[in-house]
């Protein structure tokens, strides 16, 4: 009985995943272009940090910023970009808010499916579609930039932690965006909230610069916030910036944040539905 319902469930999840993937590939031109455009900022970043380091150390190769050499900095940038390929959720929160506003969310309320699980599968499919297209360019960029990775491949323990932190980063990013989208049950329009969130995320995730560059008390504050897991944390793991004795503690803290956000999203969803009056007809 249980086994049967489990296979049914898995079959259903697989179908949701497949159809979301198909939908993603429907606009292949736009999709491929959007994927490739993401690689453009790399060049500007390389130039920017080279200029910064020239100004700081007047071009000496030993100049360091908060323990980062120029090579480290560019390696960090590339890795954080990889981390963000997992954690960023373009359009998720605004889509959910729009579905609430326009009453499309009724579809999930009426059908025997779980909105959150459905969204998660759909987003996972989007990501897989993205990786399929992006793997080759990513590999090429990392190959061309291999010179910046001065210390070579890290240990397998660090690699495992890195991969795990990327996957957790995907889930964390998903549930954060989801929670913001679900606020749409109360405010209908979440674009300002989303803007603030994206701004915070941009600076506090380490997307702009490694968080080690921050001075106290900001460094401690940012350390306690969940944003750093979206970009800084995986990159810092890979580059060995996280002390070994703290590594698994921090991965654990990330998992706790994730659990907290899953709980929050469930509360928001069930409260939101209570409040929902079926806007838009």
């Amino acid at each position, binding site marked *: 009985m249980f086994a049967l319902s489990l296979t*049914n469930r898995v*079959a*259903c999840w697989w*179908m*949701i995943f497949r*159809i979301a993937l*198909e*939908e993603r590939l*429907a*606009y292949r031109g736009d999709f491929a272009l959007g994927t490739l455009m993401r690689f453009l900022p790399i060049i500007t970043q390389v130039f920017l940090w080279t200029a910064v380091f020239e100004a700081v150390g007047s071009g000496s190769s030993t100049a360091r910023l908060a323990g980062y050499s120029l090579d480290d900095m560019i390696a960090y940038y590339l890795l954080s970009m990889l981390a963000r390929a997992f954690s960023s959720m373009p359009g998720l929160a605004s889509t959910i808010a729009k579905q609430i506003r326009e*009453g*499309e969310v*009724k*579809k999930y*309320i*009426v*059908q*025997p*499916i779980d909105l959150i699980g459905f969204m998660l599968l759909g987003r996972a499919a989007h990501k897989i579609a993205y990786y399929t297209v992006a793997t080759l360019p990513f590999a090429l960029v990392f190959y061309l930039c291999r010179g910046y990775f001065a210390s070579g491949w890290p240990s397998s323990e660090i690699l495992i932690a890195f991969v795990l932190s990327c996957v957790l980063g995907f889930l964390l990013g998903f549930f954060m965006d989801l929670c913001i989208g679900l606020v749409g049950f109360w405010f209908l329009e979440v674009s300002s909230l989303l803007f603030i969130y994206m701004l915070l995320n941009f600076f506090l995730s380490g997307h702009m610069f490694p968080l080690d560059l921050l001075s106290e008390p900001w460094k401690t504050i940012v350390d306690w916030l969940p944003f750093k897991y979206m970009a800084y944390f995986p990159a810092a793991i890979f580059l060995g910036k996280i002390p070994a004795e703290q590594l698994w503690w921090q991965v654990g803290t990330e998992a706790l944040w994730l659990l907290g956000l899953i709980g929050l999203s469930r509360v928001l969803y069930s409260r939101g539905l*209570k409040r*929902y*009056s*079926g806007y838009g*007809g």
Partner: protein
Amino acid sequence: MYGLSLEAVRELIGHYNSIAMAIIEIEKLSKSYRVYQKQEGLLAAVRGLWHREYRDVEAVRTVDLKVEQGEFVAFLGPNGAGKTTTLKLLSGVIYPTSGTARVMGHVPWLRDNDYRRRFALVMGQKNQLWWDLPAQESFRLHERIYQIDKKEFTRSLNELSDLLQVQKLLGRPVRELSLGERMKMELIAALLHSPEVLFLDEPTIGLDVVAQHNIQQFLRYYQQQRKTTILLTSHYMKDIAALCQRVVVITDGAIKFDGSLSGIIDSFSGSKILKLQLSDGQSAEGLERFAEVTSVVLPKVALRCARAEVPKMLAAILQHYQVDDVAVEDPPLEDVIADLYQKSN
């Protein structure tokens, strides 16, 4: 003691309940919305930032309704009367302010999966299919979501797409379909899992006459075959006349009438229409002495008079005028309903 075990008694009571219980039972159901009372003007808009006045709108007020298995019921009423709100309550999309409802024994707004597998909701103004994909992909997803047996799925899909004549469109992205074709796909998506109860909210809205007719015919055939219990809201009298034996008129969130379509005329219209064909050379002058003249296109004249006065009036007219033909008719349903709506406002 009496030759009946406790179990047997329980079984009997259960049996009795299942007979006595209607498939849809609504008791004193009410739903009020809190809406922000927006004042006109910029100043008021600024004030509204910190001080807001709310107003309670009662969309549905203490509605009682029972629907038996296999009935095809129409909800009729002006815009904003509470028809859609009632359907939303019954499909569990919103919670009521007070009162109870049971559909097939389930409380809709608890949204348990057992209930959600047994009914379907189609909204003429909402799209439930995947916009950029062919409809058949959405159908396959429904096959999984509703755990439809594979053979049963293929059989239903073939039958439904045959009846609605959309076999050739199954592979075309939904965004490329016409409104009528899309509505047919929506219906298929809703019926694949053979729901026992179906809620249709204006399924023919915006469709051309042919498409409306197709969907009417389909619904009538389907309902006759399957004995599905259907609740329909529509503004097209033709939909209702063609499909529903029972009509529930809702205005201002309350039920004003519950009966057959022709019953509406009997209960709400006290007048009849007299249609006369005057003989050659007769003028219609002076007819207004007898009754209200509603149209004169000689030799035809139409008059409206109170139902009780028809024989007297007719006799008087026939005394004074030469008439070739007489017909006594009910006023058009649309007029009666328009009156009814206006009274409620």
